[in-house]
């Protein structure tokens, strides 16, 4: 095989390997190092470096190098204007005989290049933008770079430039995605704070039920978590709990704050609030699903005797069933103008009697389990902390809760973590 043919084969295989390297690249640094080795090996070049252009920092950052020794540097300053001119020069430039813009860059860093014995620069240009440069020292043969060599090096460098450019694009996309995620998290936090503030505002209207909406949100959260709901949906049900009574904003203040039990007229006025809540919440784009529906259906009953739509059983969204129980629990465990809060035994007896007709058995069981787990110290005391200031001896509830679990949960006697 003659020398020219062998040179051609060696060069082509370097180009093929380089293409493969860039296409397969998993790790960017590895890709660059390997690509640079391929380029050096194509002509047995003894030393050199690949530098990535950092537009914002106004510098070239060496990302792969070989044979530059300890006198090497990690960065080289490069002004925007210089970068623009390098990009427009476009071709390989020798330090010895250069007359173009690249030569001026080389001149600026003459001392560095002399120290590390670099005498050839190839700008890496993609879409007329400077991506970086390849800096090269002498060939092992000691011969000058020929025109043919420069063609080979330019072809190989173009591949490296595309590899760097693709990586930069990917980094940009990742940065933007991370930024969007941060913005989204920030917006979600603002949304939650706003909703909490709104919940407090709703409760202020009713002087007898201050803190009710926030507590319903928290009870709903505990129940949904006990039922194994994913975090996103647990957040949603918490918000739904905060907002479930938003429809009360349109109910006559004198009815809400009436110290007596509601008469028929007051009840009719009051029963407008779930549908009104739905109307208020529907036009809003909530980050969680079905919040307006949970407000609308939190007074529906399993037996179809609830309002506003008289839905039955599975027609009622699961979230609304949770809010219904949380709402009833808080109503019974807080003082009302017409009665004092009920003992916890009475509250759970009420649940027991009304499970299947008013309340969903699965939701009741989850609530009982959550209670038992907290009483037995298996879970953080969230329900108990919400109740502690009003109740003592909560531990005495355990037998009743276990009985209810046995009754509604098909024989599961003890509290366990179900999910």
């Amino acid at each position, binding site marked *: 095989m003659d020398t020219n043919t062998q040179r051609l084969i060696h060069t082509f295989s370097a180009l093929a*390997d380089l293409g493969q390297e860039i296409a397969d690249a998993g790790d960017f640094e590895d890709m660059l190092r390997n690509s640079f080795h391929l380029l050096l090996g194509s002509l047995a070049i003894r030393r050199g470096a690949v530098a990535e252009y950092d537009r914002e920092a106004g510098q070239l950052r060496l990302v792969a190098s070989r044979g530059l020794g300890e006198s090497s540097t990690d960065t080289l300053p490069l002004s925007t204007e210089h970068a623009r001119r390098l990009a427009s020069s476009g071709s390989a430039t020798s330090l010895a005989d250069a007359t173009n813009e690249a030569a001026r860059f080389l001149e600026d860093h003459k001392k560095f290049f002399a120290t590390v014995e670099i005498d050839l620069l190839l700008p890496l240009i993609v879409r007329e933008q400077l991506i970086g440069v390849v800096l090269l020292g002498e060939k092992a043969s000691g011969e000058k770079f020929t025109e043919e060599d420069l063609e080979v090096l330019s072809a190989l460098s173009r591949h490296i430039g595309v590899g760097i450019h693709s990586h930069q694009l990917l980094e940009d996309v990742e940065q933007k995605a991370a930024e969007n995620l941060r913005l989204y998290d920030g917006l979600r936090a603002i949304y939650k704070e706003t909703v909490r503030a709104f919940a407090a505002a709703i409760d202020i209207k009713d002087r007898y039920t201050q803190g009710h909406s926030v507590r319903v949100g928290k009870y709903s959260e505990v129940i949904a978590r006990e039922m194994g709901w994913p975090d996103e949906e647990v957040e949603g049900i918490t918000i739904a709990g905060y907002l479930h009574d938003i429809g009360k904003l349109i109910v006559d203040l004198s009815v809400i704050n009436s110290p007596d039990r509601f008469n028929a007229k007051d009840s009719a006025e009051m029963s407008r609030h779930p549908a009104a809540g739905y109307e208020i919440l529907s036009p809003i784009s909530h980050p969680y699903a079905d919040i307006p529906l949970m407000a609308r259906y939190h007074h529906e009953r399993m037996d179809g005797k609830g309002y506003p739509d008289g839905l039955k059983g599975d027609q009622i969204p699961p979230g609304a069933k949770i809010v219904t129980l949380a709402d009833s629990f808080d109503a019974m465990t807080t003082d009302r103008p017409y009665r004092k809060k009920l003992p916890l035994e009475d509250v759970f007896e009420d649940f027991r009697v009304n499970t299947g007709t008013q309340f969903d058995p699965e939701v009741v069981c989850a609530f009982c389990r959550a209670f038992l787990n907290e009483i037995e110290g298996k879970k953080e005391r969230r329900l108990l902390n919400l109740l502690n200031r009003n109740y003592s001896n909560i531990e005495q509830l355990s037998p009743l809760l276990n009985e209810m679990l046995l009754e509604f949960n098909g024989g599961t006697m003890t509290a366990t973590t179900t999910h």
Partner: protein
Amino acid sequence: MAETDRETSIQTRAVGDAAIIYASDYLNKLTGERIERECRRQFDSGRRTLIINFRDTELINSIGVSILVGLIDAAEQNTARLIFSDVNSNTANLFEMLGLTRHVSVAANEDEALSWVERDSAATA
């Protein structure tokens, strides 16, 4: 006696002050880095004459060439002598074409390489 590093699959043999390192059939990034590691280990242990035997080597790609050029530099920095032996004609042409032969001696076989080492030792003794 030849020994094989099971982890890196590099066969090496010590003969007097020299170490002989056997290159594999295809010298690429993976196998090249194994040779590079072994050579650097030999330099670090004070060995100043290394013979790389290419008897099994059919093909050397560009990364392989680049690694060999790096070893030439490392040998120069360590004032060590690097000899290539048992190079087939295609590889010999490649080394000649790329200028590697300006920096390393290429022996026809291991015996010739060892005779050069012996002659140099005698000359400096």
